[in-house]
């Protein structure tokens, strides 16, 4: 879905040629290709990587497949833009980073929240020293009823629930604004109290298989709500809290504090 709503239109807007579309569902690959006027489509990513002649590959699959597809693309000499979260495990992400570095290829993750106007303005203000020495960040992204359904809710495919889906943005944004300090320790909590009893699925966030009626299985074996704090070698602390299902109001807020000033967004 993110390929249709963002990656493909954005690449076309930038004047790039898209040589083909891959989806394990062949009909969907054809439909998407036709929708955007792309001539080739496949249901096997190996064919696309080996036979397309592309310079770069965008990986927008369930998380479980980020590692094998990214590695295959890098090994074939392709630059990769991979959706978030990077992988199922840190060990997989390490290998992906090492492979890209060894081959001199770009490996970029779809952590787009760094590119929002408010995040960029905050980063610039921090860079100009307006906040002084920044030492604390708090990122909160709560959805009262915002479980996407389908593969997103299955640990074996997604790696985790809101922690992996939106927590990855929260943690990335806080860490990036703090200046990417070196990690020390992580303390956390998580609850699985609502989803496993019967989920209120939010229609707007459903993956393609659910929207198209191809995936009707209700399986929710991930957390509803997670949070904690992360400490860094320089003494900085990042507090995070994220949810898909929580009896609280919806919220998205980033706060960063320095020893001179602090800022919070949105709005900035």
């Amino acid at each position, binding site marked *: 879905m993110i390929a249709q709503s963002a990656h493909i239109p954005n690449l076309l807007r930038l004047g790039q040629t898209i040589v083909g579309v891959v989806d394990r569902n062949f009909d969907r690959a054809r439909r998407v290709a036709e929708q955007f006027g792309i001539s080739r489509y496949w249901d096997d990513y190996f064919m696309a990587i080996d036979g397309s002649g592309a310079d770069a590959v965008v990986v927008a699959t369930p998380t479980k497949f980020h590692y094998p597809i990214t590695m295959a693309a890098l090994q074939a000499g392709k630059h990769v833009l991979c959706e978030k979260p990077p992988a199922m*495990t840190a060990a997989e992400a390490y290998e992906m980073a090492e492979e890209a*570095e060894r081959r001199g290829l770009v490996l970029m993750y779809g952590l787009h929240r760094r590119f929002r106007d408010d995040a960029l303005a905050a980063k610039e203000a921090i860079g100009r020293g307006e906040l002084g020495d920044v030492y604390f960040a708090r990122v909160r992204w709560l959805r009262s009823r915002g479980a996407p359904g389908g593969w997103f809710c299955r640990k074996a495919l997604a790696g985790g629930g809101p922690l992996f889906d939106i927590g990855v943005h929260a943690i990335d944004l806080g860490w990036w604004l703090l200046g990417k300090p070196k990690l020390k320790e992580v303390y956390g909590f998580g609850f699985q109290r609502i989803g496993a009893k019967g989920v209120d699925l939010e229609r707007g966030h459903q993956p393609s298989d659910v929207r198209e009626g191809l995936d009707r299985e209700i399986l929710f074996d991930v957390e509803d709500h997670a949070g904690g704090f992360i400490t860094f070698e320089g003494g900085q602390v990042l507090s995070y809290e994220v949810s898909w299902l929580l009896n609280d109001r919806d919220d998205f807020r980033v706060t960063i504090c320095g020893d001179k000033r602090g800022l919070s967004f949105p709005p900035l």
Partner: protein
Amino acid sequence: MIFDGREEGEAHFRLTQEFVRAISSGKQELRIGADGWDGYTIMVMLERASQFLQS
């Protein structure tokens, strides 16, 4: 700042723009985007945080 509902879409566009620029420039360096090593550090944080989840 002014909000008009397009902030997320524009952020996605800028991300793609940086990816294309990094490849086209030949330097293959990202200025803002999360690269492979950022991704690794983020996964270490996520993996440790997930150890506290109830199953």
